[in-house]
């Protein structure tokens, strides 16, 4: 991994990759969302309301995967002192928080017509809200220590990212461990209880959103590196 530690080499690779991830992601997302809205049949119980699934589920996945990425980056930063890991952690936080918010908002909109409530404090909803607050805390900590970390995040922020990862399995298991209003998992190791007729656009939006997420992270990493470079140059000029 230290082959990519050199920012110049990383930028050479990241520049074309941003486009390769962004455009296929956008196309898959548009196809999935379009098919989810107009092609698939309505659900036997929920009717048309079920279509919000195609946004809600990828948003939940990326909110949780984003924190997984922050935890991996934190581990690489703390153990191997990888210079880009700190930048990656900072880059992931904003899209991760955004997708967590999308998950909470779409879930709330979905809950009103199906369950009969905008919000309830059950295990799944509460733990997902905690994840959103963890993102806010991580971003605040990262910004407060940005100057000393040269565009990345401070070791304290990385430790916070690692500790926060404890919440991810709790979110995942919350509907199994505790009685909850949210239903149990539909897609497990044993298969899917979403019928194929409704399932396939979810695959498209899942992959599409994930590629978009990766493209956004690369864009943000490039921005952070450019900012750090500009900052360093300004300091040199001020001194010289």
């Amino acid at each position, binding site marked *: 991994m230290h082959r990519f530690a050199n920012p110049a080499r990383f930028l050479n690779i990241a520049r074309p990759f941003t486009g390769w991830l962004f455009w296929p992601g956008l196309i898959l997302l548009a196809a999935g969302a379009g098919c989810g809205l107009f092609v698939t*049949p*309505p*659900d*036997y*119980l*929920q009717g048309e309301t*079920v279509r919000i*699934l195609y946004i809600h589920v990828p948003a939940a996945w990326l909110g949780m995967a984003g924190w997984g990425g922050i935890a991996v980056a934190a*581990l690489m930063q*703390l*153990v*191997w*002192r990888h210079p880009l890991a700190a930048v990656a952690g900072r880059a992931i936080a904003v899209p991760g928080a955004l997708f967590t918010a999308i998950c909470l908002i779409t879930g709330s909109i979905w809950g009103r*017509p*199906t*369950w*009969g*409530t905008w919000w*309830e*404090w*059950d*295990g799944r909803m509460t733990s997902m809200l905690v994840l959103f607050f963890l993102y806010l805390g991580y971003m605040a900590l990262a910004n407060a220590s940005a100057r000393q970390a040269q565009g990345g995040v401070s070791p304290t922020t990385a430790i916070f990212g*690692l*500790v926060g*990862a*404890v919440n991810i*399995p*709790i979110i995942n*298991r919350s509907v199994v*461990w*505790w*009685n*909850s*209003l949210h*239903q*149990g*998992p*539909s897609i497990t190791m*044993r*298969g*899917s*209880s*979403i*019928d194929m*007729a*409704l*399932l396939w656009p979810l695959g498209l939006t899942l992959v599409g959103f994930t590629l978009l997420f990766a493209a956004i992270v690369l864009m943000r990493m490039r921005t952070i590196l450019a900012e750090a470079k500009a900052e360093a140059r300004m300091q040199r000029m001020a001194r010289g």
Partner: protein
Amino acid sequence: MKAKHQRLILALAALVALVGAALLAASALRDEAAYFYAPADVRTKGVEAGKAIRLGGMVVKGSLKHAPDGVTIHFDVTDGKATVPASFKGIAPDLFREGSGVVAEGAFDRSGTFVATNLLAKHDERYMPRELEGMNYNETTHQMKAEQ
């Protein structure tokens, strides 16, 4: 031992301790963090009349009755182990129906009937087109089979 390995071991040990602590906390919260009481919980733990709780389970098929006043409904809630009678006055959510899940907020009266002040519909994890309605989902094979 290199400093890198020392940091790796330290980080992993801290992570293991942390996950262990979280698991312990989660298992201790098992009952307290439950969003509702199932009918079997009500029977084993005993819930005194008048105490505000949530009761969750399935609406027993054929138990739903509309009272003559037009706004009150009576139904039974079951979790497969125990069944309790419940009543509700007001507008139930669209997805509230027999054989489907319900979470009712309210309290037991002295006769042991759960008087709900609010009803929430709880649906399960299955999604399918209308043509497949009435078919049974096999948990182990993930196949749909016509209802016998």
